[in-house]
């Protein structure tokens, strides 16, 4: 299995729909120590203008991490996951994710490069509602570290 930089531009089929629940948002907010009422109490979220409880800004990773496996595990991409560390992450949101959203992620390979023996794979996951409204795009760079001594 060898890393193939020519895989850049490849796009994968949409992920299965992910239904965002209030309790999942609460669980995630608790796990990151975010005690915002807007993540827990629908009335508090509505007072801030949101339709329901909203997810913290990095919550989309729950969905995009799973959706991105199609690229990371694509044998033609050839990323050696045992050597992978997370290099960069970025979210660009059209609006916050809220409870009740049913989301699909479309993963594509933005860039694939080899730098100083490291394999760098940047994926992009466009997250939209099943009705086609864009919610957030996540960019993720994974680095398969060079094998020592090679």
């Amino acid at each position, binding site marked *: 299995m060898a890393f193939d930089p020519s895989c850049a531009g490849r796009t994968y089929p949409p992920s299965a729909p992910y239904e965002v629940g209030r309790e999942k948002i609460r669980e995630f907010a608790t796990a990151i120590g975010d005690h915002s009422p807007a993540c827990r109490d629908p009335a508090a979220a509505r007072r801030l203008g949101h339709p329901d409880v909203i997810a*913290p800004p990095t919550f989309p990773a729950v969905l995009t991490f799973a959706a991105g496996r199609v690229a990371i595990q694509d044998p033609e991409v050839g990323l050696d996951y045992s050597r992978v560390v997370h290099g*960069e992450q970025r979210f660009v949101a059209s609006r916050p994710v809220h409870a009740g959203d049913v989301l699909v992620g479309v993963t594509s390979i933005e860039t694939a490069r080899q730098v100083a023996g490291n394999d760098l794979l940047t994926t992009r996951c466009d997250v939209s509602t099943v009705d086609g409204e864009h919610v957030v795009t996540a960019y993720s760079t994974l680095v398969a570290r060079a094998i020592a001594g090679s």
Partner: protein
Amino acid sequence: MSAPRHADVEIGDRLPELALPLHRDDLVRYAGASGDFNPIHWNERFAREVGLPDVIAHGMLTMAGAARVVTDWTGDPGTVVEYGVRFTRPVVVPDPGGAVLVVTGEVTGKRDDGTVVVTLTATSAGEKVLAQARAVVRLT
């Protein structure tokens, strides 16, 4: 604390600093909530086998914790419209003891579209663990 208003915020304003303790149970909780069960985040033996000094925190947990400096400031997690980081160093979480993530934020940009740019720093054990950590924040 009332939400900061775009008109009142100035470049150079500093956000209240946060010190976030991280212990092994926090990593396990994040693994469960996020679905990222990579054993480097909970299994010391495995972490050492792949060349790490010890169990390390999920990069995404560090990123999420750092964002709290911004969302605690605005009082609304929905105000973050863009957020990106580079992971420069792992946050090592020994047991016992754990780690402390120290996060600071400063307003480094103010735009006409009602947003400001906040640049974050995050350190653990005196070392920077994030670089180019920036959030674009919509204020009223």
